[in-house]
């Protein structure tokens, strides 16, 4: 970190993020809600074990961990989407997700001759890249599902602790004393 020597009194940015991430994630882990590892072999509340693992991987590919903040997996985005699907009273919406996930596997078989989760990381990215190609004007089933998948992944991630505090470093929703932030209109 090039700025570390200039601010010797403070933790480096990376240390701080790691510490905060651990503090945020630890209680979640203790609750058994999420894992840093990919979801495997565990069914969701609505999705089957295979569907749930596929969704978990897709969300992490859309919003991956990087050196700034954890990704969708640690933010438990798949669990959030699965939970919403499980309590939904809209069978059409549930069916859309089921068939959408099937379409992802279908596309992976077409491109890679194997299901999505059996493909290599590069092959998986290739599948998502194909799905995202029609983002502005989706035509095929996988392209249409991409918008739904990305939209809910973004909602789940950017409304999570990790999304709000670690990734976006959101500063509001606090009591301000004295002068409020911003510039005077002069």
């Amino acid at each position: 970190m090039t700025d570390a020597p200039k601010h010797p009194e403070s933790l480096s940015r990376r240390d701080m993020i790691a510490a905060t991430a651990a503090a945020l994630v630890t209680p979640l882990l203790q609750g058994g809600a999420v894992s840093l590892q990919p979801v495997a072999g565990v069914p969701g509340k609505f999705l089957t074990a295979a569907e749930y693992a596929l969704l978990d991987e897709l969300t992490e590919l859309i919003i991956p961990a990087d050196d700034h903040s954890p990704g969708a997996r640690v933010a438990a985005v798949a669990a959030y989407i699965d939970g919403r699907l499980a309590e939904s009273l809209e069978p059409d919406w549930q069916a859309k997700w089921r068939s959408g996930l099937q379409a992802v596997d279908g596309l992976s078989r077409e491109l890679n001759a194997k299901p999505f989760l059996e493909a290599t990381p590069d092959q998986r990215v290739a599948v998502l890249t194909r799905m995202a190609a029609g983002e502005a004007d989706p035509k095929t089933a996988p392209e249409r599902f991409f918008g739904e998948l990305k939209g809910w992944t973004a909602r789940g991630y950017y409304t999570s602790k990790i999304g709000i505090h670690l990734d976006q470093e959101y500063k509001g929703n606090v009591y301000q004393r004295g002068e409020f932030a911003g510039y005077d209109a002069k």
Partner: protein
Amino acid sequence: MTLVRVPPPIEQDVDLSKTYDAVIVGSGAAGGMAAHVLTTHGLQVLMLEAGKKLPIEQELRSMQWPYDHPRRGDAPPGSHHLSFNEYTIRKPPYAKGAAFKHVYSYVGGWSGSDYVKNILVDEKDHPFTGTNYAWVRARCLGGKTNIWGRLALRLSDYDFKAKSHDGYGEDWPIAYADLEPYYDKVDLYLGISGVKENLPHLPDSQFQRPSKLNAGEVKLRESLKKSGQVLTPYRAGVTTDGLKHNKYRSKCYGRGACDRRPGGCDIHAVFDSPTGLIYPAMDTGHLTVRPNSTAHEMLVDKNTGRARGVAFLDSVTHKSYEAKGKVVILAASTLESARLLLLSRSPQHPNGLGNSSGHVGHNFCEHVMGPGVTGLIKELVGKPHTLDDGRPGGFYIPRFRNLKDRQPGFIRGYGYEGNSGHSMFPAHVMDTPGFGGQFKRSVRDHSGAFISMGAFGEVLPRYESYVDLDPETKDAWGIPVLRFHYHFSDNERKMAEDMVATGREMLEAAGIEVVGTDEKVLTEGWSIHELGTARMGNDPKTSVLNQFQQSHDVRNLFVVDGSSHVSASCQNPTWTIMALAWRSCDHLADEFRKGNV
């Protein structure tokens, strides 16, 4: 941090055998103000509210983080909020045949629909018919003041004397000078924040400390200044310095995220009618409030034709009651007050109460909205994230059209509401293409680098724009519902085009890249600024009320809400509704003492 909260005052028992000095129907901005003013003058007042009295602090949960809510603020399964498409493609009643258990209007913020479920009405119980209209109704103590957008603006003689200016419509029976002292009273009693700009068309208020602008907004303000235009911090109906005379309200602590919730503020720094007006009025000992009271007819004395009270149903038990008053004050909202007048037919008033002119329900107007622009401030991309939304609102660009100039395509004008900077949810995420590390970094880097603004324009009042009673459809209480006959006209459409083009020019002139424009005009009603269904005027043949919001036909009947407005202006109406109600109720109390009502 915990604030000391003062519980609501003890309620007085309702005594329906008694004749109150005044019965008020409705508890929003207008009804609350009427209660405040009349109780201050010593009148004994009964207030009827159709909805419940909510434990509003629990309801709003203003600082709840999305992740502490099971659905991140969304409404539970089975609840549905109407979308723009539904309002456009389908015809009212919108909830008819819906598979959902509850159907609500569009209001809900980006992740706050669960917080309004007890404030908004269920469209299933409250149908209406006719032309498309996004009618937002709040039935609970305080009405829509529990969810209002907080922009608190004055009107000017460009509005009150608009006909004299451009020849269209009617002038109001008052001038700015008549209302100015009452705007001052409202400012000082309720608190308002803003910056003085000395504009003849947007008079200044008695401001408390203004909220601040952020970097992007300052950039646009400086650029506009060069061409003599004004961008001013949001004039918010929020007490930023506190109010010594009101123990129920805290000052604003800039907690922000105010745009996330549909307006509500659990420390009541934002004005709402219960804590701002009704609780203090209860503390005088002169106000009795009866929630769950659905008024369905204004009662008249068979001999004199004068108002004698209000017939209502208990909203829960559906049992019938009557409340008696020497004066009856309608403050049920522009459309509900018109509905109540039309429902109150009697031999003396065959077209509805106070409707000898035939103008009740007509001259219906509001604000047109939807068009707007979004720009990217390139130098903010990748900058550290700052606290930008710790305030009640962003900025306001006051009207500039048809003041000195004369536009070829349309009369009257519009103003822009807007904001820039970081917010809790990065709204640009779905406009950021792709996925993966690059996508994530782009969302992060661009957070806070956008500025967007949307216009609110004056919709012209027209006799042909009206509501009447549907001959067949009834609500869940068996009361006939409103039927809409209302469309925007060419004037609004031409104005909407100018809103987009001018917004684009403003951003470009400031060196801000325009990255998005909204040309779409939102469904009629979307602004929640409906006005003008029982307008004031000096001529009883063409108006319903006199300058004191008093019925021309029935002298002990007053209609003190937005229905009395003669034209819509482009400035938001709440502050004017309250200033007018204060003025009228001062007059009423005076007449009451003299025995003239």
